[in-house]
C-alpha cells in the first residue's frame, strides 16, 4: 500500500561532472521529486538524459553538487556516521547489466552475504540460512549458493542482483534499467518478481528505464526527464492517456506498438535531430530546438514544473 508519508525527497538536486577547466557536464540540473513509502516512481528518458545519475545521487553513490536529498525527514548530507550507515543500508540498488554487476570471482553466496557481513546482520549458520532464504525468495534454488555467476543465464543473474539488494532489509530500491539487458520473455519474469517482492516486503522503488511500456506497467507515478531536468511528472495512467509536455507526447508516439493494424493508422510525431549535449545545454527550455511549438519565451526563460491536474505537473510555457 502506498502511504502518504514521503520516504525520500530530492530538493533542487544537482550533479555536475567537470570535464576540464572550462567544461562541466550538467547531468542532473535542478530536479525535485518525492517518493512515498510503498510507491513505485518510474523515471524515463532517453540515454544521456541523466536518469541514472539522478538515481545514483539519490542513494548517495554520487555526492550531489547542489541541492539536497531528504530521507525520512533528514538531510542525508547532515547525517552522522551511524545514521548514514543506516541510510546506505536501507537504500539499495539493482543494476542494469547482470553480467558486469556481479563479481565473477565470488560465489553467489558470497555476493549475497557481503552486505549481511558488512552490516553484521547474521553470522554462522543463520547467515547461510538467510542466503538460502533469499535465493528461494527470488526464485532460485538453495543449491545455487556455491556456484559462480558464469553458470547462470542473464535472467538468473538479475535475480542474484535482486537477492543481493534484499539481503540487508532495504526500504528503498533504485532499479536502474533492471530489465533492458534481458530478453522479452525473461523481462516479464523479473518484473513480476519485483512486483511480488514489493507487495510482500513493502518496498519502495525508483524504477529507471527507457522502456515506456514497462515503466507504465510497473509504476504508480512516472517522471519524464530530458537533458537533466524533469519535464513532466504524473500518475502513470494519467501520463499515458493525457501527456501534456510536447516531449512526452513525442516520446510516447515513438514507441512501436506490436500490432500491424494499429501501426498503420498511427500518427507519429517525429522529432527532428538529436538530444543536445548536456555540456552546453540550451538556455531557457531544454527542449526548445526540437519542439514544434517553441516561442521566443521558451528561449529566454526555463519553464518550471506547474501543477495542471491532480498530481500532474508539467514544465512547459505553452501548455
Amino acid at each position, binding site marked *: 500500500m502506498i502511504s502518504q508519508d514521503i520516504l525520500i525527497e530530492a530538493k533542487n538536486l544537482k550533479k555536475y561532472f567537470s570535464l576540464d577547466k572550462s567544461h562541466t557536464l550538467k547531468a542532473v540540473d535542478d530536479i525535485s521529486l518525492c517518493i512515498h513509502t510503498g510507491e513505485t516512481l518510474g523515471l524515463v528518458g532517453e540515454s544521456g538524459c541523466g536518469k541514472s545519475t539522478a538515481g545514483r545521487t539519490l542513494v548517495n553513490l554520487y555526492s550531489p553538487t547542489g541541492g539536497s536529498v531528504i530521507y525520512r525527514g533528514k538531510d542525508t548530507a547532515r547525517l552522522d556516521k551511524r545514521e548514514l550507515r543506516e541510510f546506505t543500508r536501507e537504500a539499495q540498488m539493482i543494476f542494469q547489466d547482470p553480467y558486469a554487476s556481479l563479481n565473477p570471482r565470488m560465489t553467489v553466496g558470497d555476493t549475497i552475504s557481503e552486505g549481511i557481513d558488512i552490516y553484521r546482520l547474521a553470522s554462522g549458520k543463520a547467515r547461510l540460512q538467510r542466503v538460502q532464504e533469499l535465493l528461494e525468495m527470488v526464485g532460485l534454488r538453495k543449491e545455487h549458493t556455491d556456484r559462480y555467476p558464469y553458470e547462470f543465464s542473464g535472467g*538468473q543473474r538479475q535475480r542474484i542482483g535482486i537477492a543481493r539488494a534484499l539481503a540487508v532489509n532495504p526500504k528503498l530500491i533504485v532499479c536502474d534499467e533492471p530489465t533492458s539487458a534481458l530478453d522479452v*520473455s525473461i523481462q*516479464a519474469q523479473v518484473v513480476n518478481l519485483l512486483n511480488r517482492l514489493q507487495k510482500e516486503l513493502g518496498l519502495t522503488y525508483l524504477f529507471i528505464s527507457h522502456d515506456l511500456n514497462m515503466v507504465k*506497467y510497473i509504476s504508480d507515478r512516472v517522471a519524464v526527464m530530458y537533458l537533466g531536468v524533469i519535464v513532466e511528472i504524473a500518475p502513470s*495512467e494519467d501520463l499515458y492517456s493525457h501527456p501534456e509536455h510536447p516531449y512526452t507526447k513525442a516520446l510516447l508516439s515513438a514507441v*512501436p*506498438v*506490436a500490432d500491424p493494424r494499429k501501426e498503420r493508422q498511427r500518427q*507519429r510525431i517525429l522529432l527532428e535531430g*538529436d538530444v543536445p549535449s548536456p555540456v552546453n545545454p540550451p538556455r531557457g527550455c531544454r527542449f526548445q530546438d526540437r519542439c514544434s511549438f517553441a516561442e521566443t519565451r521558451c528561449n529566454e526563460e526555463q519553464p518550471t514544473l506547474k501543477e495542471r491536474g491532480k498530481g500532474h505537473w508539467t514544465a512547459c510555457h505553452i501548455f
Partner: protein
Amino acid sequence: MTTTRLLEMKDLTVRFATYGGNVQAVRGISFHMNEGECLAMVGESGCGKSVTAQTIMGLTPSPPATISGEIFFRETNLLKLGRKKLQALCGSKISMIFQDPMTYLNPTMTVGKQLEEVLQEHTRLSKRERLEKIRKTFDLVGIPNPEKRIKEYPHEFSGGMRQRVLIAMAVLCGPELIIADEPTTALDVTIQAQVLELLKSLREKLHTSVLLITHDLGVVANMADRILVVYAGKVVESGDADAIFHSPAHPYTKALLASAPSASWQSKQNLVSMGGTPPDLFSPPVGCGFSPRCDYAMKICREKHPPLLKAEEGHLGACWLLHERCRALTNSQGFFPKEALS
C-alpha cells in the same frame, strides 16, 4: 504484382566447434523472400537469427563453422560461390546494416573515406563521381551538410547519425537485398522512430527487399510484410504480419506477444510470463525446442520435432497442435484446453 524469388534458403544448418563442444546455432532453417518484400526474422538472443543473416553474407568462417544446406540468391548458390565472386556480390547486390554502428565503423578513418572504399571496390567511378555519389546518398538518408560531414570521423556523429552512415553505406551500390540486423536496438525510441521511417522510405524509393532481424515485435509490426519466428535455431512460425500478430499459431509466438508489455495495459497488472529459459544449443532437445516451456506440451512434443504445418493459407507453424489428428480436439482458439491434457 509479379513475385520473383530473390532469396531462397533451404535447410540451412550452422554448427560451431568451440572448446565447450559443438553449438548448433542454426538447425535447419528454410525460407524464401520475394522481390520488394520486407521479411522479418524475430527471436530472442541466441536463437540463431544473426548467424543465419551472417551466413548469407559469407561472414561465418568455416572452420570453426560447419555449414550445410543451400542459399540461393536469384539463381546462384551463395554457399558454393568462390570467395572473390561472393565478395563482389556482397556489398553491392546484397548489403548489411549492423546493430552497433560504432563497432562497424573504423574510428581512425573519415566517414567519407570509408564510404569511398565501398565504391572503389564495387564500381569504376572516378574520384569526382564517387564523391558526388556519396553526397547524393547522404541527402537520401537525411544526413545534413554532406560536404562537411564527409570529412568527419565516426566519433563526431551521434548514434542516430552513425546508423544513417551505415545505411548510406548499405545503399551506396543500389542493393537488391538489404539485411538489417537489429538496426535500431542500440538507439533511443525517438531516434529509432526516425531510422525506421528512413528505412521504410528507402524501401519505397529504391525498391529493395529488406530482411529485418530483430527481437522487438513492435519494430516488426511497423515494417514487415511477412514474419518468421525463430526459436532455438529453427523456424517455429511463418506467415503474414497480420496473421502472426492477430492469430498466432505457435504457443511460443503467443507467449511472446503476451509477455511484451503494451501501452494498452493497466499498470500493476501481472505480466503474463513464460517460465524457464531457452534451451542450451550445445545439446538441443530431441523434440520441439519449446516443449519444456510450453503449456500445451504433449508426449510427442518431447520425442519428435514437428514439421511446419499449415495453420491457414500462407501461414505455417511448427507445432503438433496444428496436426490434423490433433486439430479435431483443439478448441476454438486453436489450442487445447489445458485440462484436456492432464
